[in-house]
């Protein structure tokens, strides 16, 4: 029981997390013996090794030279903080898709509050299966244990017990070997001297005597063996407002093709995380570290929120093709602005909207063709200022709202952007009589209505005001003229058509 609330805890544990993070960034390494190394040559040491390398006797902490001597095919990768951080966040994101109450204990170790999930997912075994599947979906092979306390869940995950029945923690942990857990040297030596081989034997030792010989660490070990919960309160993890994947490169890339291949893996990892959390990206921020020390940063606002990797990669490829980085690339970081996925319900008789993949490809090409500012949907701005609109999200997938099908035939205006400055000669009643420079050199006004005064924001520095006139010109065009009140100048706003 934690905080008096949590009664069932799942522990998601990834063995040899640094190696798993490297495999996630480079999936081809899973089939080969690989070790993550750290330190300055020649004192480099193995941080962690993957399963294939461990089978060949390579353990954490041994020198790199010894590891190579034990396995000549060993692939070595330098420890990457960016890679490990991304994998750690990915594991948390994956668990967050199952339960919103998490505790980020250590890299590759997450506690998940699964109390109450039974009615949603099924029993404890089903919850454990779902957590394992979510972790695998983001490229991390995780082991899951479910128990009533956090230590019991951790031991269950490491020992492969999966599910410990409520109240049976001590009995379930009793046969587990003490070698399953990582003890301090002092504890390990003491247990070895005493001939204690299982957690059950450790739990049966007198508690007071254990405290007298080993101190507080002995008491903690005794609690651990009995599956008693930690005294520390549950520290909930909250997802960050940004989602980022990064990859450092061992070599410099100065061509688009290889860079897109690297980006493809980064995008796949990022979208897998988004999918696990039922989110979609509505903007991407790409940062490329360049060999000369500079950076190439691009922000792409997606016209259509999505989490499909291929359209996103196509967008990035087109953007990089249009604005290539000014130098060789040494590291890639991709950040997504995530928003909740919207449920879409189809409607009988409604035409299917464009598929995300098709739409993204078309939008990317349109952006290349006319520029990002020329493509997208718009919405009317909350202002009476003429021609006031703001960019808006193009949302063909939205459930169709009831359109304001007025049935009215509204006369459309063809706008001139910016409004064209014209010369206007007025008659005795100060009404426009001749317009010069509108659509031809000089047109006579044959019909005229106005003035219609509009103004706004007079309470602010951006105050504006104008008199609008609708005029029919001698060449047949019907235009809207506007006379600015402050300057007295005339403009052609547009043509009714």
């Amino acid at each position, binding site marked *: 029981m934690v905080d008096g609330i949590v009664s069932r805890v799942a522990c998601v544990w990834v063995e040899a997390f640094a190696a798993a993070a490297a495999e996630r960034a480079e999936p081809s390494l899973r089939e080969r013996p690989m070790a993550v190394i750290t330190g300055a040559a020649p004192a480099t040491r193995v941080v962690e090794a993957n399963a294939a390398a461990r089978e060949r006797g390579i353990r954490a902490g041994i020198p790199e030279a010894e590891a190579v001597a034990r396995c000549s095919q060993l692939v070595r990768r330098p420890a990457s903080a960016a890679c490990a951080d991304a994998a750690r966040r990915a594991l948390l994101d994956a668990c967050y898709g199952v339960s919103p109450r998490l505790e980020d204990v250590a890299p590759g170790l997450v506690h998940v509050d699964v109390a109450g999930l039974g009615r949603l997912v099924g029993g404890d075994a089903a919850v454990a299966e779902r957590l394992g599947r979510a972790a695998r979906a983001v490229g991390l092979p995780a082991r899951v244990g479910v128990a009533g306390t956090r230590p019991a869940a951790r031991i269950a995950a490491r020992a492969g017990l999966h599910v410990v029945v409520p109240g049976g923690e001590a009995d379930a942990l009793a046969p587990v070997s003490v070698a399953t857990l990582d003890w301090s040297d002092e504890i390990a030596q003491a247990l070895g001297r005493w001939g204690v081989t299982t957690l059950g034997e450790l739990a049966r030792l007198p508690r007071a005597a254990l405290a007298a010989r080993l101190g507080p660490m002995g008491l903690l070990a005794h609690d651990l063996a009995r599956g008693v919960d930690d005294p520390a309160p549950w520290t909930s993890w909250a997802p960050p407002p940004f989602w980022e994947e990064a990859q450092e490169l061992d070599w410099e890339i100065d061509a688009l093709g290889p860079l897109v291949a690297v980006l493809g893996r980064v995008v796949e990892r990022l979208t897998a995380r988004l999918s696990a959390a039922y989110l979609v990206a509505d903007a991407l921020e790409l940062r490329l570290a360049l060999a000369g020390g500079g950076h190439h940063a691009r922000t792409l606002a997606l*016209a259509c929120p999505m989490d499909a990797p291929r359209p996103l990669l196509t967008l990035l490829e087109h953007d990089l093709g249009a604005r290539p980085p000014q130098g060789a690339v040494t590291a890639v970081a991709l950040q997504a602005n995530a928003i909740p996925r919207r449920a879409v319900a189809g*409607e009988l008789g*409604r*035409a*299917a*909207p*464009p*598929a995300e993949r*098709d*739409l993204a490809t*078309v939008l990317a*090409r*349109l952006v290349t*063709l*006319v520029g990002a*500012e*020329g*493509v997208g*949907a718009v*919405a*009317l701005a909350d202002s009476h200022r003429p*021609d*006031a*609109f703001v960019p*808006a999200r*193009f*949302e*063909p997938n*939205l459930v*169709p*709202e009831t*359109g*304001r*099908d*007025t*049935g*009215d*035939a*509204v*006369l*459309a*205006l*063809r*706008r*001139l*952007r910016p409004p064209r400055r014209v010369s206007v000669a007025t008659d005795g*009643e100060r009404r426009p009589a001749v317009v010069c420079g509108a*659509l031809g050199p000089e047109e006579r006004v044959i*019909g005229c*209505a*106005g003035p*219609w005064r509009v103004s706004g924001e007079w309470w602010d520095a951006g105050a504006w005001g104008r008199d609008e006139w*609708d005029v029919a010109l001698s060449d*047949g*065009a*019907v235009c809207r003229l506007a006379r600015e009140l402050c300057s007295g100048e005339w403009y052609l706003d*547009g*043509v*009714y*058509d």
Partner: protein
Amino acid sequence: MFSLSTMMRTSWIRAGRITEIVGELSSGRTSLMTACLRDVTAAGGTAALVDADGAFDPASAARTGVVLSRLLWVRCGGRRDAALAATDLLARCPGFVLVALDAGETPPRVSLGAAFRLRQAARRAGVALLLVGRRRVAGAGATLAVRTRRDALAWAGSRRAPTRLAGMSTCLQVIRNQGAASPPSERLDERQWWTAS
């Protein structure tokens, strides 16, 4: 008499075909195009407008009833070649019910072969293609072409000093009809467009 409002909702503009609306300035061609966009987006469809000159007015479109969030507006900044290329791209994207090209006062020249390729692309994707401009663009590639013409203007306010333009009366004339839903007469309909402000 064939009702224009009925036509816009049924078979006037068909998927996989090219329809052209031509006319002088202030003849009602843009209002007709906006009404077509309204019909598609208000019914839940997705539409795209390739705007060669950037002349589209979102305010009057919203007053007409166009659902702006389902309208992809592509502004080409006066570049006719870009407008044609954008139209070609969109015509190949299944899912758009209507792709309209507003070519403005100086429509681009399109070869007959290019027009037929455009029609073939629209047919494969099931997209209705609407070309709007001062003169025809697609030639024999278009299934239906209509010309708009203004008949009269109506003014609001006193007769001596009207305050606003109230509306415009226009008529349509079929100038090409190759296998489209055949209207019964060459003269289609008269229509009045009203300013909403």
